[in-house]
């Protein structure tokens, strides 16, 4: 690096978005410093990561400009928080779907002015970003489409609606026939809302195109996951996590193209057995709750300790892209049903029973050639925290080295986590 990394500032645009510019600018600088320290200090990075570094540098700038340009054309920008929201419908209607910010401790004090302290840090962080006016994505969206995957979220949406129009999709909690019927109706409501705001109609034709666009994005992410199964790992877990996080922000066609370019390079690395770390580095798979941008805490600890993360079984990870939508359907009703079928396969811990997730974890463990599983649960995420017991039992049964951690975004437990993670690696190294 010849010039120091910085996340670019766009104060006038932020001003126009009614942001707390002075405060946000400090957060921007801190994020840039953290990125430089955690990301640019890595050695043997693939060259094609340059695109994602640039995406990071422009995360509060050029990408926001793009969203504002979309809005100017009368197309809406929809904010979401969950992999259950069918972005294909937004894309079909000509809109843009973005995952909203919720991965930083910086916005939590804003949230705690209103929300209880003892709830999920991701929900608090997300609410705080809007309340504090310190997220340009939040400021740019036309509306938010939330869901009912957990109690903290669904009750927070009622309060968030006071700050930005927030609609809520009911996610069933079981996977019986009647749950699918409900879910299909919810998708119908979502489609109607998007059509109303876009002033367009979702047709079989534009939905078919949108399904391919998003499938292509998911296929590129699957390709990345597959190549990480090689030893030595061709890319760090930190870089891969960043890409999985960026999948919720970037324009999908461009993102898939750039990611495929990166995968070309990674596959070439595999052919020449070039790795980011030596083949002897312990290979860890992460499973559990999502790590929203810029939550790199655990990946950074694990990889600083000399191991490499090779898979994220998480909403910001394989849960987002492991399943594709059947592209062979040609009429709208069938397409919506295919979409429902695909989304019902997501194995979020909000479902009961959810045994398919245990099988999925074991499947990904084998496919990624990992040597241990680190279960990651955000504090107060009851469903993942309790489901962790079943994952642990399955790992014990299979003889898989296993460590479970529960943490939030604050740095205060980094010392303890470091000790646990290093002891876990000692266990794997034998």
């Amino acid at each position, binding site marked *: 690096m010849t010039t120091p990394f910085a996340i670019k500032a766009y104060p006038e645009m932020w001003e126009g978005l009614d942001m707390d510019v002075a405060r946000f600018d400090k957060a921007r600088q801190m994020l840039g410093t953290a990125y430089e320290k955690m990301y640019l200090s890595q050695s043997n990075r693939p060259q094609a990561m340059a695109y994602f570094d640039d995406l990071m540098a422009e995360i509060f700038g050029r990408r926001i400009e793009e969203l504002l340009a979309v809005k100017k054309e009368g197309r809406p920008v929809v904010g979401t928080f969950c992999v259950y929201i069918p972005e294909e419908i937004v894309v079909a209607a000509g809109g843009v779907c973005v995952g909203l910010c919720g991965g930083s401790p910086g916005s939590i004090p804003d949230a705690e002015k209103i929300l209880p302290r003892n709830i999920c840090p991701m929900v608090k962080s997300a609410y705080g970003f809007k309340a504090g006016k310190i997220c340009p994505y939040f400021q740019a969206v036309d509306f938010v489409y939330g869901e009912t995957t957990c109690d903290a979220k669904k009750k927070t949406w009622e309060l968030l609606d006071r700050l930005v129009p927030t609609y809520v999709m009911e996610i069933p909690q079981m996977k019986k026939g009647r749950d699918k019927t409900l879910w299909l109706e919810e998708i119908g409501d979502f489609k109607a809302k998007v059509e109303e705001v876009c002033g367009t109609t979702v047709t079989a034709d534009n939905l078919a195109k949108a399904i391919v666009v998003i499938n292509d994005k998911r296929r590129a992410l699957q390709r990345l996951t597959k190549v990480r199964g090689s030893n030595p790992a061709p890319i760090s877990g930190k870089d891969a996590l960043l890409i999985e996080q960026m999948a919720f922000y970037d324009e999908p066609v461009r993102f898939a193209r750039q990611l495929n370019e990166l995968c070309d390079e990674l596959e070439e690395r595999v052919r020449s057995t070039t790795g980011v770390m030596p083949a002897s580095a312990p290979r860890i798979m992460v499973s559990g709750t999502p790590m929203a941008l810029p939550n790199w805490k655990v990946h950074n600890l694990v990889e600083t300790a000399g191991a490499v993360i090779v898979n994220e079984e998480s909403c910001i990870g394989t849960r987002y892209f492991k399943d594709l939508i059947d592209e062979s359907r040609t009429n709208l009703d069938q397409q919506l049903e295919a979409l429902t079928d695909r989304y019902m396969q997501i194995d979020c811990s909000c479902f009961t029973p959810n045994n398919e997730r245990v099988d999925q974890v074991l499947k990904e463990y084998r496919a990624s050639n990992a040597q241990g599983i680190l279960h990651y649960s955000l504090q107060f995420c009851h469903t993942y925290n309790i489901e962790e017991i079943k994952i642990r039992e399955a790992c014990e049964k299979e003889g898989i080295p296993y460590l479970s951690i529960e*943490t939030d975004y604050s740095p205060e*437990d980094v010392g*303890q986590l470091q*000790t646990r993670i*290093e002891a876990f690696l000692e*266990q794997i190294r*034998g």
Partner: protein
Amino acid sequence: MFIGIDLGSRTVKVAAMRDGRLVDHQIVESGFDPQRQALEMLRRYEPVRVVATGYGRHLAQHQFAQEVITEIKAHALGARHHFPECRTIIDIGGQDSKVIALDANGRVSSFQMNDKCAAGTGRFLEIMAATLGYKLAEFGPAALASTAEVNINSMCTVFAESEVISLKNRGIPASDIARAVHRSVINRLAVMLNRLGHGDTIAFTGGVAKNPGIVAMLQEQLDQHVRLLTPALPDIVGALGAAIHAGRS
């Protein structure tokens, strides 16, 4: 000579080994500059190899240690040196409490550690002793002098302190409250022990193992056939383990 150094949250411990035997040890408060403290302590030796453990291990590696291992591995090595048959270790230090399970060969098979707060740690006992006006050495015996069943419910040091203050102001004798404080540490340990399961021989290491109240009340809590073994110098077991590792690598 092989040196193990344990840079803990409260104290720095050094163990020096020659021919597989402990020949010297030191325990000094960490102070404000544990690195300087550590270098000072190491001056008297001519080590072949230094291995560091404890919270300051990584800083030590930058300065003077050839290798680092975690406290968990260090206590496993140190405890097995004293008690070759033990499969379970309880280690309570200044900032952490841990339960470690070992396989038949003495390798760590799993472990439990307290979460990010200081509940149930040595620091917790220090603060509670001070709140009740005891010197640390008097605290355990005071707990044993009471037979009362007073409870402290809070696991958090800050809240537990307010609970202790309200008990004091209700006129509850200090030794009864001391017992309740010790009981709360034992209860927390029991949860970790139950989660991990334990063998018939448990080694108790870390500075808190010097507290006779904790030792006696913990033994009471365990089934009769379970032996709770405390080494002669429980606070240097981590440093000892690091020294053993230095000798092996």
